[in-house]
């Protein structure tokens, strides 16, 4: 064993360890997660994850079919559809009312943009170390996805942002992540704030909206949408509804706890806005 430490093999291991440390420092300094060798690994592992996800979906749906009550499920789906339509109408109505007020002058509030392009994507992986609901999708730069693209659910609710895009897959940071931040507004009262994840609420599937004015008239149940300020996220994307309002410790503002309109942990399919 002592000879091993003087051998060429040990030196090779040291070189590899130093190389990994150097690449890690480079990736970290450039704000990236991956480097070229890891993108090669992502191409290799993505087919396995895709198959595993399909098997998981199939097994899950089979079990669901035999244990759920069909009538109750049908009624539930109909009610969800109706609720979604009503909430969308509420957002449109609030937008029309708000345009008669001084908020019309704000550049951030825009009309709905019909020029958005979408990429359909399936969830193929959720790692055990990712505690904020992050996941891997089966589309990447080959399908036009880029880092920073917005991810929305099938119903149009904000899910997160593409954190890293490889050739055939991409990683998504969800609204539950503490590093997530998006300019948002309460649809009814037009109170601006910053939508961000919070580790205190992430385990319950909730996020927060901070920097809301202290004298806000917002209440539980109000819808939250994005404003498009900063150009990172498209405007008027539904986020979710407020569940409670908590005065911030300094008393200068209010923090709203927001329940996203979609259950992040059980998502299996999303859309990525590749252009808007």
């Amino acid at each position, binding site marked *: 064993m002592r000879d091993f430490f003087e051998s060429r093999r040990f030196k090779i*291991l040291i070189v590899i360890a130093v190389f990994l440390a150097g690449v890690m420092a480079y990736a970290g300094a450039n704000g990236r997660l991956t480097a070229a060798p890891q993108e090669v690994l992502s191409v290799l592992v993505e087919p396995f994850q895709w198959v595993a996800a399909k098997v998981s979906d199939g097994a899950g749906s089979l079990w669901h079919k035999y244990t759920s009550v069909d009538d109750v499920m049908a009624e539930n789906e109909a009610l969800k559809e109706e609720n979604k339509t009503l909430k969308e109408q509420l957002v449109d109505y609030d937008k029309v009312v708000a345009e008669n007020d001084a908020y019309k002058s704000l550049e951030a509030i825009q009309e709905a943009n019909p020029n958005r392009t979408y990429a359909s994507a399936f969830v193929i992986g959720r790692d055990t170390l990712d505690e904020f609901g992050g996941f891997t999708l089966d589309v990447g730069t080959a399908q036009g996805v880029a880092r920073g693209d917005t991810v929305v659910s099938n119903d149009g609710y904000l899910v997160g942002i593409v954190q890293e895009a490889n050739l055939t897959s991409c990683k998504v940071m969800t609204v539950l992540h503490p590093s997530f931040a998006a300019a948002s507004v309460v649809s009814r009262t037009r109170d601006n704030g910053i939508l961000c994840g919070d580790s205190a609420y992430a385990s319950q599937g909730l996020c927060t909206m901070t920097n809301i004015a202290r004298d806000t008239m917002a209440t539980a149940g109000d819808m939250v949408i994005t404003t498009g300020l900063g150009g990172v996220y498209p405007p008027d994307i539904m986020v979710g509804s407020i569940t409670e309002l908590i005065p911030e410790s300094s008393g200068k503002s209010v923090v709203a706890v927001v329940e996203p309109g979609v259950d992040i942990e059980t998502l299996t399919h999303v859309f990525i806005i590749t252009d808007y």
Partner: protein
Amino acid sequence: MESQRKRRRQLMIRWMLYFLLLLCAAALQTMPGFLTIGSFKPYFILAVCLAVAFQEGEFYGALFGAVGGLLWDYTAGRTFGMLGIGILFLCFLVSVLVQLYLKPSSVNFFLLNLACGWLLLSTDFLFNDLMRGYAHAARRYAVVILPEIVVSSLLAPLILLLVRRIAARLSPEE
């Protein structure tokens, strides 16, 4: 000549199977809903890397561990190289310990998985949760990370069995 060619082929197939096992472990580890217990699910990549290091020695085990770690970096969204360096080091250490001090038994493998899992995930927790000041980090460590380590270590001997079978079937007869 014939036996040398046969040996080389066996060696190549053996390592291909190890790598395939690693890819399967990565896929199972990230499979949505698979073996999810509450808010945690077990990991398998570390067990595969340690099992190969157990079987193949410190040099090749460490190299394999580095590749496994890089794969885990990708699936977990960690900075490239973090887990790679960690598992490289752990695989080297485990292999040396088994060669010098410990019996290569399943019980020891379970205990080594426990210790290595605790070291690796605690370091990851330190850099990615504690140092970033996330709220309820301590609670998450107790409720998610520690049970994850225990459950993953309990499943690890099965992976060692699989690796040993591969090695036994594809090793040259002595």
